């Protein structure tokens, strides 16, 4: 077992464990913190796959910006474990069972599928580097890039319109 495999399993365990903690934490602030750890683990996976640009952007955008926004909102509302609304036990159980069923179905489908032998390259390949991504982004994919800037305009206007008193 070489180092990248060890890293893969460690990061996967970290992502799964903290994802579960996001769901079961009673305190919303703790949920946010666990989710940030999940995002760090996923960024680690990206870097392991040599998708360095996405790894960094994931940290900056998700862990840095989006989660801080969540944290701000939670603190603004002063939410904590005591104010946290709880579903009754049976509804929670139903949720877990439904999620588990979906998991089983997906895993069963994956067992059926012929994906054996295909590998994702680790540590090699340079498509994840900023130079190549940037080239593709500003040539072939320039139109969606512009549209996503318009999307931000829409989000900005929407947030301002809704947020103002």
């Amino acid at each position: 077992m070489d180092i990248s495999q060890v890293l893969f399993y460690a990061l996967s365990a970290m992502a799964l464990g903290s994802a579960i903690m996001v769901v079961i934490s009673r305190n919303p602030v703790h949920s946010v913190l666990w989710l940030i750890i999940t995002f760090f683990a996923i960024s680690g996976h990206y870097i392991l796959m040599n998708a360095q640009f996405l790894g960094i952007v994931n940290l900056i955008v998700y862990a840095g910006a989006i989660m801080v926004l969540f944290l701000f909102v939670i603190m603004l509302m002063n939410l904590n474990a005591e104010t946290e609304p709880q579903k009754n036990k049976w509804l929670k159980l139903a949720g877990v069972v439904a999620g588990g069923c979906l998991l089983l179905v997906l895993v069963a489908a994956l067992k059926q599928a012929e994906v054996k032998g295909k590998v994702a390259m680790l540590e090699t390949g340079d498509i994840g580097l900023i130079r190549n991504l940037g080239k593709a982004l500003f040539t072939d994919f320039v139109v969606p890039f512009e549209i996503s800037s318009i999307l931000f305009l829409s989000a900005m206007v929407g947030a301002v319109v809704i947020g103002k008193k």
Partner: protein
Amino acid sequence: MLIEKYIYLAIALFCIGIVGVLARRNAIIIFMCIELMLNAVNLLLVAFSKMHHAAAVAKGATAGIEGQLFVFFIMVVAAAEVSVGLAIIVMMYRNTHSVDVNFLNRLKH
């Protein structure tokens, strides 16, 4: 690394997100769980992008780059969605003094 392992990981994360959406009542936590699901998809897309790159690297140096670009766009969209979504949730809190989605039952037949 075998691609199945990434698929299993992503499926597990996706399903944890779904369980969170179904089992929690706090609108903010539900929204966070949706973000978790989006991240599971992102991980999947990057893994597939590297898989197709490995398979077609002889044909072109940039094979499989779409997957990573798509992840970039998903992140962009998620950021926009979160900003509007949180604004709506804050507004809901102002009106009902709660973020409990079960309070949302005024619209009736």
